C-alpha cells in the first residue's frame, strides 16, 4: 500500500511556532523571535509511528506541543479529523483533542505529587465529563472501573490506586502517565521523549508496552527521541529535524540504510555501534561549528553553515521537500534534478534576487 493512497489522520501544514523576544517594562516591544519551529509539514497515517529525531533544541518538543495546542502556533495549520485545531474555537478544539493525548518526558515531574494515582488517571475523564464533552457521560463508578482497567492494562497492580506518585519507581510512574494518556481512548498519542528519563532496562519495558498497546488499540504515535536506536526500534517512519525544519522524512528502514541528507548522515554516524571492531574502524563525520541561534530569519538552507557538502546555491535558496521515491523525502539541493554544484555565488545571488523581486 503506497503512502499517497492512504488518508492521513493528522496533517500538519507549514506549522510555525515563534516565541517573541520582548524588551521594555510596561509597554513591551517585540524585538525579535525565536523560531523554534519554522514551517514544517508532514502527514501522520493511522496505525503508524512517526519518530522525530534531532539534536537538543531543534524543535522536536515544540512541534508536538504546537500540535496539541499547548502553545498556540504562530501560523500554519494542524488538521485532525477535518478540523483545523489552530483556528478552531476552544470547545471544538477540546473536543478534537479528546483523541490526541500526550505522554511526557519526565515521569517524576509530569504527575502531580499531591494526587493519588486514582485521581491522576481519572483526571482526563473527570475534566471531559465535567465539560460535558464525552459522548456517554461517566458516573464516578464508571470512572473507577475504567481506572482499574487501565492500571491492569499498563501493568500496574490496581491495589495501588490510593498511592501517591512518589511511592513509585520511574518506570511505574511512566506507566501511570501512559494509563492517563489512554484514559479517553485517543486515536493518536504524542509521546515527548517518553523513555529518555528512564534506565535502559526500563526503557525496553516501556517501549514494548507501547508497542503492545498500539497493536491492541490501533493507536498512532508521534514519538520523539534523541536516541536513534529507540527510534529505529519503534518507528515506521522517521522525520529528522534540524533548527526548526524537517530535513528528511522517510521509512525507518530506508533512513537507516540509506540516509540522504548530509545532516542525517552526520547524525547517524554519531550513534555508537555496539561492536568494538566496527566502532574502531568506522569514520565519523564531525560537523564543524555550533548550531546557529534560531533567532534570525534565514534565506538559505538552514544547514548551510555546517554542511560538509555545501554549494553556493544553498546560501540563498531554501530547499523544498523533494520526493526521492515514494518512501523518502529530503530537503536538500543535492538531490535536485538540476545539477547545482557548478552554479557560482554570483549567479546564485542573482537568481535569488530575481525570485524575490518576482514575488513582490
Amino acid at each position, binding site marked *: 500500500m503506497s503512502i499517497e493512497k492512504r488518508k492521513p489522520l493528522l496533517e500538519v501544514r507549514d506549522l510555525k511556532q515563534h516565541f517573541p523576544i520582548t524588551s521594555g517594562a*510596561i509597554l513591551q516591544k517585540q524585538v525579535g523571535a525565536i523560531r523554534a519551529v519554522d514551517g514544517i509539514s508532514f502527514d501522520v497515517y493511522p496505525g503508524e509511528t512517526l519518530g522525530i529525531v534531532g539534536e537538543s533544541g531543534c524543535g522536536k518538543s515544540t512541534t508536538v506541543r504546537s500540535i496539541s495546542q499547548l502553545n498556540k502556533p504562530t501560523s500554519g495549520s494542524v488538521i485532525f479529523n477535518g478540523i483545523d485545531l489552530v483556528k478552531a474555537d476552544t470547545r471544538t478544539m477540546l473536543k478534537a483533542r479528546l483523541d490526541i493525548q500526550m505522554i511526557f518526558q519526565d515521569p517524576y*515531574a509530569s504527575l502531580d*505529587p*499531591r494526587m493519588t494515582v486514582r485521581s491522576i488517571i481519572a483526571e*482526563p475523564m473527570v*475534566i471531559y465529563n465535567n465539560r460535558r464533552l464525552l459522548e456517554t457521560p461517566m458516573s464516578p463508578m464508571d470512572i473507577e472501573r475504567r481506572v482499574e482497567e487501565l492500571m491492569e492494562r499498563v501493568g500496574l497492580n490496581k*491495589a495501588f*490506586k*490510593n498511592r501517591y506518585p512518589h*511511592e513509585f519507581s520511574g518506570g511505574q510512574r511512566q506507566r501511570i502517565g501512559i494509563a492517563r494518556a489512554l484514559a479517553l481512548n485517543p486515536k493518536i498519542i504524542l509521546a515527548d521523549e517518553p523513555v529518555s528519563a528512564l534506565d535502559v532496562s526500563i526503557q525496553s519495558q516501556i517501549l514494548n508496552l507501547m508497542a503492545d498497546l498500539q497493536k491492541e488499540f490501533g493507536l498512532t504515535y508521534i514519538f520523539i527521541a534523541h536516541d536513534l536506536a529507540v527510534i529505529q526500534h519503534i518507528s515506521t517512519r522517521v522525520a529528522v529535524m534540524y533548527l526548526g525544519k524537517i530535513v528528511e522524512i522517510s521509512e525507518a528502514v530506508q533512513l537507516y540504510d540509506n540516509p540522504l541528507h548530509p545532516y542525517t548522515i552526520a547524525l547517524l554516524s554519531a550513534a555508537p555501534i555496539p561492536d568494538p571492531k566496527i566502532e574502531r574502524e568506522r569514520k565519523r563525520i564531525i560537523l564543524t561549528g555550533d548550531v546557529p541561534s534560531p533567532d534570525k530569519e534565514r534565506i538559505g538552507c538552514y544547514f548551510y553553515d555546517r554542511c560538509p557538502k555545501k554549494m553556493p546555491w544553498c546560501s540563498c535558496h531554501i530547499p523544498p521537500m523533494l520526493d526521492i521515491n515514494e518512501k523518502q523525502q529530503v530537503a536538500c539541493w543535492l538531490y535536485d534534478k538540476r545539477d547545482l554544484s557548478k552554479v557560482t555565488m554570483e549567479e546564485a545571488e542573482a537568481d535569488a534576487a530575481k525570485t524575490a523581486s518576482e514575488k513582490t
Partner: protein
Amino acid sequence: MFFKRKQPKEAALNEFDQVVEGNSLGKDAWKRLKKNKMAVLGMVIVAIYSLLAASAMFLPIHPYDQIILDHQHLRPSFSKTAGDLMMESKLKDLYFKAWRSGSLVVTEAESQQIENWISQNETNKVWDFLYAEGEAQREAGTFTFSSADQRTIDRLQEKIDTEFLINIDKMFYTDSETGKRKNIARMDFLDIQRIYAEYIGVEESVIANQIQNEVRSQVLNTVKAATPGLTAEEYEANLELELQSLGEKGIASIGKTNLLINLKTAISRSIERGLKQEIKDGKAQFPINREITVNESLSADITADLKHERHYYLGTDYSGRDMLSRIIYGGQVSIAIGLVGTITSVLIGIVLGAIAGYAGGKIDFFLMRLVDIMYGLPYMLLVIIFMAIFGRNIMNLFVALAMVSWLTVARMVRGQVMSLKNSEYVEAARSMGASTGRIIFRHMVPNSLSVIIVYSTLRVPAFIMQESFLSFLGLGVQAPYASWGSLVGDAVNGMTLYPWKLVFPAIAMTIFLFAMNFFGDGLRDAFDPQSKNQL
C-alpha cells in the same frame, strides 16, 4: 487537602486481600511533625488555649464584664475570698494610720526602715510589714483599735457577710385565667409590655411611650457613633431612615430586649428585699438556686451568691473584674484576631497571587506594583488611620489588619505559581483540557499549600502582636471587651502596686506566642523533606 472534593473512596485490595493505602506528602509531614517534641508541645498548648477560649462561655468563671467596685485591685489568692482580701486591705490602711498617729508602736530601727520604704515608693512593703506587725500586736493584746476604727471594721464585716448578688435566669408568667405558665423571654413584645405595666402598676400606654423613646435614643446613639460630626437635623433625618430600615419587627425586638432588662431589674429589686429579710432572720443559706414567686402571676428562677465569697485566683482589675475570666475572654479575642486575620489575608493573598502568577504580563505587573506600593507605606500607620476613620470595633480591626497583611502571601503564592506554571504536571493538565480554575485550585494551590500553611502558622503570632500593639495604644479592642494587648495596656498604670494585672496576661500571651512559633517551626521542618530531622 482544602480543595479536594469527596470522591467515592473504595478500599483498594491486593491479591492477599490487604488494604493498600497511599502515603500522601501530608501524611509524611505529619509523621515528621510527631517526632519534633517542641512542635508537638506547641501544638498541644495551642489546642488547649483554643479550647479554653472557645468554651469560655461554659467555664465556671465569673462574668468578665461584671464591675464590682468593692473588689477593685484585689490581689491574686487561692485561699482567701474577696471578703478576706477586702478586710485585709482595710486593716492595712488602718494599721498604717495607727502607725502614723503613733498608737501602733514599733522599734526605732523599724520605723526608720518604714520611712526608707516610703521614700523609695515601696508602699507594698510598708503595708505588708505594718499588717504583720499590727496583727501580731493585736493578737498579743498590746494594740487595740480606736472605737471609730473598730466600728469601720465591724461595718465592713457585716457588709461582707450579708451582701449578695442576684442573677435571674428565667422569668415565668402564669396566666391567672387559664393557669398556663410561660417563659417570658419567649413571649411577644406586646405581651411583655402588658405584663410589665401590670407589674409596676402604671398605664400600658405610658410604658409603650417610654420604650419608644428608649429605642429612639438607642438608635440615635448608634447612628452618632457610626457617622460622627453631623448636625442635629441630619441626625434626625438619619434616625428616621434607620428606624424605617429596621421596620416594625426590628423595633419590636430592640424594645423587647429593653423591656426584659427593665422587668428583670424590677423583679430583682423585689426579690432582693425578700432575701435581705431572710438574711436578717438568719434563714438564708447561700448559694441559693431556686424559684421565687414575686406575685400571683410572676415568678423567677434565680441564683444568688454572697458577693464577697468569691475567689479571684488571678486578682482583679481597676473596676473589680475578675482577671482570670478577662484573660480567658481576652484570649478569645486575641486568638480570633490571629486566626481570622491570617485566614482572610491568606485567602486574599492566594487569590491575587495566583492571578498575578498565572496571568503574568500586564496584570502581574500592575498587581505587583500595587503590592510594592503597599509595602512602601508604613502599614501600622495605615491601620491606625483606618481605625480612626471607620471607628474602633473588633470588626474594623479585623478588616484593617487583613487589608495590609495579604502582601507577603500574595508575593509568595505568585512565586510558587510562576514556578509551578511551567512544571510538567500542569502542562499535562492543560493538555487534558483542564480549565484555568482547575489548574490553579486543584494543582497549583495544593502544591504550594505547605508553604502557605507554614507561613500562616508563623503569621498568627504576628497578628496577635499587632493587635496587642494597637490595643496597647488604645486603638484596638474597647472595654468591656478585652484582649491580651488591652489588658497589658490597662495594667501599665500602677504596675508596681498591682503587678498581677500586668504579669498574668503577659505570661498567657507569651506562652501562646512561643507555642505557636514552635508549632510553626515544626511544621516548616516537617513539610521540608530536606530538613535535618528526616524520617
